[in-house]
């Protein structure tokens, strides 16, 4: 890959990342989360609330750059959207799983965020939650190719 092409790919990846940061939930806008900021928490899943219109995951852990462990709340879109957009299932992430979560934190400083990516430490498997990552027909067929 020549340097220019690499630059384009890196920029495109950044752009996709920036666009996905605009992801919204099922029934409200998400500008209460700071889309320009990505935080990372490493910890253990305490509880998963697999509910409409928003799924929530509670993570007990430490946010990068901090040395105080705490319980954090991660909000997401609906179960149906997570299935189509991120390959989630009810049991994709369970209480007790060790995880690393990238998220857009709440602007008001509370211990909450909009989940962007969750990685299961034991398997390396990860799930994203970009509601706009489902914009083509027959998504499953494309995944299988």
């Amino acid at each position, binding site marked *: 890959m020549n340097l220019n092409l690499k630059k384009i790919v890196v920029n495109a990846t950044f752009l996709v990342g920036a666009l996905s940061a605009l992801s919204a939930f099922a*029934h409200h*806008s998400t500008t*209460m989360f700071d889309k320009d900021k990505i935080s990372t928490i490493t910890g253990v899943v305490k509880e998963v609330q697999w509910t409409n219109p928003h799924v929530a995951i509670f993570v007990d852990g430490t946010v990068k750059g901090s040395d105080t462990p705490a319980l*954090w709340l991660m909000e997401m879109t609906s179960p149906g*959207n997570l299935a189509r957009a991120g390959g989630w299932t009810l049991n994709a992430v369970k209480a007790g799983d060790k995880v690393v979560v990238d998220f857009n934190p709440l602007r008001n400083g509370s211990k909450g965020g909009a989940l962007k990516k969750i990685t299961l430490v034991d398997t390396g498997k990860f799930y994203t939650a970009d509601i706009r990552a489902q914009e083509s027909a*027959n998504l499953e067929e494309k995944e299988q190719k």
Partner: protein
Amino acid sequence: MKRKFLGIALSLSVTLGFISPFSLAQQPGKPIINPPPTAKDWTNLAKLPDWSGVWNPKITDQDKQAKTNMPPWTPQANELIQFQLAEEKAGRPPPLFVNCLPEAMPSWMLITHNAMEVLFTPGRVTMLGESDGNRLRRIYTDGRTHPEDPDPTFHGHSIGKWEGDTLVVDTVGIMPQSLIAISEAAGVPNNGDMQIIERIHLVGKNELHDDIEVIAPKVLTKPWKTTRIYFRQRARKFDIVEGVCLEGYFAPGKDKYGNDTFIPVQHDVGGNRIPPQ
């Protein structure tokens, strides 16, 4: 004598359980019966275009149209929209839909982030949504007209007819509180007398387009046209699932007897659960 006769007639009506003189004046004649479908009615459904599967919306196009295809708001409506847009930009998105009432017409076609399915039965097209406020539209294709004075509902009274492979839907009788929303954080109540005309059709094999015209004289200076796009999914794992909006305001728990029950969880004004303190 005349008054006495009227009194007897009224008493007789009430005694025999007849319809009141008021409704008699409004709806003379026999009650309208919906006839049972015939075998031919069921066979004819096979001639309609194939809209089976699950349809999820093109949200990026909704986003784009919120900027490029603004409805022709009245000055007063525009003032509210501009305020809402500024609030959203400031990180305080107006919580238009977090009460979990139906997104209603036309908003659930305009700004939904969730999938739907479309069912054909004789004389009816039914749209069923996933998640959010109990979305369900009944579109009558049996040739009926709108009621003269329909009771307003969230999704209105819809009649449809097929023009080739396009379903043309006319909807009236929508609650005045129903929002004309351009996003989940910006919308104006239609304030009554709204009419919505839709032309729903396939584009290619797997895109469903809804060409929508909103006529809302209380808040729009002229009719507004827009198109909303949906993608077809056939994978079984994407089948529509039950999605009760209010479910998110509860967590599973136990009552004092040990029974499984729902425990209300605290939410902020924006509809998010309150983070741990």
